[in-house]
């Protein structure tokens, strides 16, 4: 046994906060982004596939945006090239938004938990 009478410990956990509602709301947000179990049935497979593909596109799109910003900051792009690159990325963002609407998906549906580097969106 690990416990002695002079070292008692109640097994009942205590929760202490002055902001309970705020934490409940935030913890619900976290659990909503946890991966759910894959349900492979005829009805959901199309939506699931669209979600997967669009999530990957969103991931790549954000990487491209970051790379474009880095190149802009690095000074190795002319103003025309910056404008062209920005327009291309803006159109890509618009197109992705269109596809999300088409499949009834929200930004949060395409979110990914990337571990220590945070979430995609």
């Amino acid at each position, binding site marked *: 046994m690990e416990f002695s009478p002079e070292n008692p*410990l109640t097994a009942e956990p205590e929760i202490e906060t002055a902001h309970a509602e705020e934490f409940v709301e935030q*913890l619900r947000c976290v659990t909503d982004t946890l991966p759910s179990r894959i349900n492979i049935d005829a009805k959901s497979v199309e939506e699931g596939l669209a979600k997967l593909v669009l999530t990957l596109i969103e991931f790549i799109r954000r990487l491209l945006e970051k790379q474009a910003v880095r190149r802009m900051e690095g000074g190795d792009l002319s103003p025309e090239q910056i404008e062209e690159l920005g327009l291309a990325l803006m159109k890509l963002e618009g197109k992705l938004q269109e596809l999300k609407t088409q499949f009834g998906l929200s930004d949060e549906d395409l979110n990914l938990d990337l571990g220590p580097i945070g979430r995609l969106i």
Partner: protein
Amino acid sequence: MKLYAHCLIEDLDAFDTSTRGISGAAVRLLQIDELAVLVTDFNADTVAVTRENALDHASVVRSVLDRTTPLPFRFGTLVTEQQLRSYISARKPALQTRFAHVRGCVEMSVKIIREVSEDKAEARDEITSGTSFLEEKRRELLGSEQKTIEASEIRTWLHDHVDGLIRDEQVTTRPSEKLVLAAAHLVERAKIPQYKERMAAARKNRPELHFLFSGPWPPYSFANIELEFKTQFGVS
């Protein structure tokens, strides 16, 4: 017949037999070598992920916490007795090392919320060209990097407050979220009053942050036995 495995324990010959597991099933102590597992008999192939079942699982694991430090299995671990025996026999040294790590400790949890500014929506209306689009993205990235720096500072600050009091910690930061940090601290039971005092002092130092402290919990964040189990038997 399968067994629902709640947790591994050591140094426990008996327990409260009135304890009930998932769906009210009687919990029994299955002795395997020098260790034991709290199990219930289970007839189905899967465990429904419900609030009641999760609470039942937690209740069984917690029922022994005042006498020993258990290694909780992941919720939903269903195995045969043979699988359980093979697992424990094959993994005994690793399990004993894990027990040595958590022995005499409990898990204390800290969650921190900070306010984050949401200025993105206002700026989006002004975007009319490719250049302004990239400028806006640049502002977003700079804001994101600043949040990462702030989250890292909070992590270091919290660690400094518990340094010397904890045996181990698992910390997750989410720089872009309001819930910016979630930490699990493995604390020796004798040090809990001191730990609570330090946390109270920490809270006073940072009135701009909102805190949630909880515990003592079984060492869920430090057990890490489900992956070993999965690897060996393909059970989840």
